[in-house]
């Protein structure tokens, strides 16, 4: 009880220092004054009275000190004292401090930056209320070999009427929209949504209102909601925008709301939301092309929701008719089943793998940096051995000396952590710009409070790591040795050398792991660039999209005429060698697959032989450089005369007729209600799903195709490809815009890229991982080699005397060179051996990112080991040569 009271008193008095000092001062003055008075009364002369009084009182400063100790915590005072001492020590050796801080700041900064990416993408909850209740609506159809089947309108109606698992749910699909009448015609990203989507996400418009069931009913007045960004851009943030009407795809729509700034869904360039207005009366089975989000009722698990959807799928099959040309049995045989999953998992996908690999890689760099710094600290304390021994002899406790070492580590780590945070902020900004486009939640990455906390934790971890090694080494052993050994007359003992050598070995091992990983990524990248994507010299192909409006008259031929006119205008531009038009270009993500039946093959009644569908105009293949293997290309005459023709890819031709040459003249169709169409040509395969994926078997139809039983397919949202050396230049783009607008001034251009943009995007993950791992590997190599060099150089400087004796006894310079270089080589080889084993165990985490190379690729492992050993040998030879040049006379006279 009294102890506690004293503690509290001390705690408070810690803050009232000055006042207490004054009080003590006053009491001492009083005391001495009383004493002097008494002494004078006893007959002493004034001066003597004062002297005697002071003598009797005792040493004022010692008493003050004692008083202070009792008043506060001597522990805290000592702590501050140690901190000041450590700070002074560091200030005395600025080069050492700078080297350590720079090394650590780079390590901590890189780790913090990577953490902010991992945190923003993987760890932070999604920015919706109760995000754990949100699931992505997916189906699966093993009978059709479809892993993820999108939800359909038929499913929507059944779920809306009968589901028991969801509080609410909504479907949506990305639709790009033309906005005209607000300055230049513009092509923007939009979403078609059912009215349940926003409430499901828990999002309310910042201005105006959300969609109601009435807005979403077919035939209702056309409405739309703007995103915050688009509203700021187009209406300068004017609240009066709500209620106005704008022209979207040629139709007037009323703005009924503006979403809040923090709303995030899909890409950051989303501009507007439009009610999809699904019509139950016209809904058939099929059209599995939507996306869905649902909010689970409290307590409902994903498995229970799956069960609920499974219950309703047969209801769906019974309630809706199959689309023309397809049998109901086709859908039964597809064995459609629910495949719900948490929304976060759906958004993040398999990206976790990449990020954790990179986080691990950067973590290794931090460890290497710490090892380097620990080594520097050990060497520094080695130099202070004499001082430490003297201090210990004078009565400094081990704890006190250890505390000082920890302080030194802490100050270094704290300053580095602060600097690292600044570096991390810079790095994150760079990271966000170089990160792959498909990186989800990119805009949620940033240095925030969580990253600062993480950095703090890392800095503390670093403190302990770099502070502990010298402490373990120098406070455990007897200090007496320090005094005896501090002369340089003895060579350093093996034991003293072991810690530093161990650290250097670990560094080499870790660097090897990172270098092997980057080596594997380099091999992957090389394999990918060697792949023939199915088109040639994509950087010389300018692509852009243009949307030919079908309003007011819906006339396929008119669309084609406009498109042909645009192509002719563009072909006439200077420097253009050819121009083509298609529904999509390779790797742009358009992956429409549907049935292709061949006349000379037999099919089960419900079979759906799925192949990639493409729609192209004449000249497309020539423009992008896809070779024509057999037959001929489409002609404009084929298109205007509605000839039933098709072109197939080499792979499809081989699958169906074994040889591309056999395919020409064969007949195919899209469904049982379709006319037979003649295969007039075979073209080379294109890697449509990405460089690292096999080329899908594809069929190419003319840009207008009158499939039997459905509305004609018209490519009115078309991608134009232009082969020209001027691709990508601003002046050329201006000419293209003028050419397009000379045909129709209301046509907006969108997605203006050269074709290699899509190729790069498909390799973005690999190149991102490669760049990051190569950076980490480079840092690791540099730090590791510096560490190794430091250890050997230091050891040489400690063994000058020994080398002198060896030389005096007849050792040749080459013997000494071998001795020292051998020491370095031993360290390196041990490190390489450990590193190889570690890399072998760890690289399998990379395997999902690799292409054309095994995770345990022997070439990479051997090459990296050789390179690392060679570099390490060179680093070891520099100090070894210095040792070999030691003059025995000088070395022995020293000291």
């Amino acid at each position, binding site marked *: 009880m009294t102890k506690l*009271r004293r503690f509290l008193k001390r705690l408070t008095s810690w803050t009232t220092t000055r006042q207490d000092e004054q009080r003590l001062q006053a009491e001492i003055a009083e005391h001495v*004054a*009383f004493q002097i008075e008494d002494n004078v009364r006893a007959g002493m002369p004034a001066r003597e009275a004062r002297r005697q009084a002071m003598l009797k009182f*005792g040493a*004022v400063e010692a*008493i003050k000190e004692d*008083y202070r100790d*009792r*008043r506060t915590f001597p522990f805290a005072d000592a702590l501050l004292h140690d901190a000041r001492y450590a700070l002074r020590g560091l200030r005395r050796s600025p080069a050492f401090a700078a080297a350590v801080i720079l090394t650590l700041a780079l390590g901590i900064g890189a780790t913090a930056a990577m953490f902010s990416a991992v945190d923003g993408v993987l760890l932070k909850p999604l920015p919706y209320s109760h995000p754990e209740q949100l699931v992505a609506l997916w189906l699966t159809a093993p009978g059709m070999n479809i892993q993820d089947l999108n939800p359909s309108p038929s499913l929507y109606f059944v779920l809306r009427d009968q589901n028991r698992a969801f509080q609410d749910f909504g479907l949506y699909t990305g639709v790009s929209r033309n906005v005209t009448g607000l300055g230049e015609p513009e092509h923007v990203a939009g979403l078609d949504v059912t009215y349940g989507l926003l409430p499901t996400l828990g999002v309310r418009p910042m201005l105006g209102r959300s969609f109601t069931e009435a807005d979403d009913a077919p035939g209702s007045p056309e409405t739309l909601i703007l995103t915050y960004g688009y509203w700021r851009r187009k209406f300068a943030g004017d609240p009066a925008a709500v209620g106005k009407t704008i022209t979207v795809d040629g139709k007037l729509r009323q703005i009924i709301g503006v979403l809040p700034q923090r709303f995030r869904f899909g890409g950051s360039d989303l501009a507007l939301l439009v009610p999809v207005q699904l019509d139950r009366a016209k809904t058939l089975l099929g059209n599995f092309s939507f996306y869905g989000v649902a909010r689970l009722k409290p307590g409902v698990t994903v498995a229970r929701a799956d069960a609920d959807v499974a219950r309703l799928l047969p209801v769906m099959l019974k309630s809706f008719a199959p689309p023309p040309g397809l049998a109901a049995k086709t859908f039964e045989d597809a064995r459609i089943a629910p495949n719900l999953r948490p929304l976060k998992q759906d958004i993040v996908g398999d990206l976790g793998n990449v990020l954790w690999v990179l986080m691990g890689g950067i973590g290794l760099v931090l460890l290497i940096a710490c090892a380097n710094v620990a080594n520097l600290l050990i060497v520094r304390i080695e130099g202070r051995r004499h001082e430490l021994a003297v201090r210990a002899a004078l009565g400094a406790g081990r704890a006190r000396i250890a505390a000082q070492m920890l302080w030194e580590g802490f100050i270094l780590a704290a300053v580095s952590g602060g600097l690292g945070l600044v570096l991390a902020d810079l790095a994150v900004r760079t990271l966000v710009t170089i990160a792959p486009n498909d990186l989800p939640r990119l805009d949620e990455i940033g240095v925030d409070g969580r990253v600062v906390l993480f950095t703090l934790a890392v800095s503390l971890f670093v403190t302990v790591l770099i502070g502990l090694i010298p402490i373990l080494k120098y406070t455990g052993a007897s200090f007496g040795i320090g005094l005896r050994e501090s002369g340089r007359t003895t060579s350093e003992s093996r034991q003293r050398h072991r810690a530093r050598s161990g650290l250097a070995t670990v560094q080499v091992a870790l660097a090897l792991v990172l270098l092997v990983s980057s080596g594997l990524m380099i091999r992957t990248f090389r394999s990918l660039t060697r792949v023939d994507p199915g088109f040639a010299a994509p950087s010389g192909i300018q692509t852009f999209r243009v949307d030919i409006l079908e309003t007011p008259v819906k006339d396929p031929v008119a669309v084609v005429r406009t498109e042909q006119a645009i192509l002719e205008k563009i072909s006439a531009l200077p420097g253009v060698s050819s121009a083509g038009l298609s529904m999509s270009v390779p790797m742009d993500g358009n992956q429409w697959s549907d049935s292709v039946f061949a006349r000379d093959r037999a099919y089960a009644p419900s079979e759906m032989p799925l192949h990639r569908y493409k729609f192209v105009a004449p000249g497309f293949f020539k423009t992008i450089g896809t070779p024509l293997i057999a037959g001929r290309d489409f002609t404009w005459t084929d298109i205007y005369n509605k000839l039933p023709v098709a072109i197939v890819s080499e792979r499809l031709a081989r699958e169906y007729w074994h040889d591309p040459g056999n395919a020409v003249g064969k007949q195919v169709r899209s469904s049982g209600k379709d006319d037979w169409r003649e295969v007039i040509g075979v073209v080379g395969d294109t890697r449509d799903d990405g460089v690292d994926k096999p080329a899908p078997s594809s069929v190419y139809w003319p840009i207008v195709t009158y499939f039997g039983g459905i509305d004609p397919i018209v490519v009115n949202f078309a991608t134009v490809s232009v082969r020209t050396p001027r691709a990508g230049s601003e002046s050329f783009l201006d000419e293209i815009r003028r050419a397009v607008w000379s045909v129709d001034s209301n046509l907006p251009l969108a997605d203006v890229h050269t074709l290699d943009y899509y190729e790069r995007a498909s390799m973005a993950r690999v190149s991102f991982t490669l760049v990051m791992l190569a950076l980490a590997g480079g840092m690791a190599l540099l730090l590791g080699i510096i560490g190794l060099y430091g250890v050997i150089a230091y050891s040489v400087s400690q063994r000058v005397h020994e080398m002198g004796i060896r030389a005096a006894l007849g050792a040749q310079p080459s013997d000494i060179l071998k001795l020292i270089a051998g020491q370095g080589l031993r360290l390196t080889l041990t490190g390489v051996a450990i590193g190889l084993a570690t890399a072998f165990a760890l690289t399998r985490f990379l395997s999902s990112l690799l292409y054309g190379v095994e995770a345990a690729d022997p070439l990479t492992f051997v090459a990296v080991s050789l390179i690392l050993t060679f570099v390490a040998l060179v680093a070891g030879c520099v100090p070894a040569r210095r040792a070999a040049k030691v003059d025995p006379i000088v070395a022995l006279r020293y000291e």
Partner: protein
Amino acid sequence: MGERKDKKDVLQGTLALMVLKTLEVLGPMHGYRIARRIEQISGELLAVNQGTLYPVLLKLEQEGSIASEWGVSEHNRRARFYRLTRQGRKQLHAEKHEWDETAAIIARFFAVKAEDLK
């Protein structure tokens, strides 16, 4: 270093007890008076280093055994007056009891003569 510290602790422990007893017997007084009183009775102990009294006073005050406030001395000087608290009185009695016991035990030991143990 350790030895010195022990001695100091014993000295301060003794001093603390003396301060408490002095304040119990003579009532509130200022530091110099307490020092003089202890000097008069113990002689030796505070002949030099009277200043060591002040850290002890502080410790006792922190423990709540004594309290202090500024006042005016008999010679019209400003001085800090210390007085015993209820808690201090309790502590004094507890420690006196302990001291008596210890002293009695020690006394018995010294009283024993060699032949008594045979």
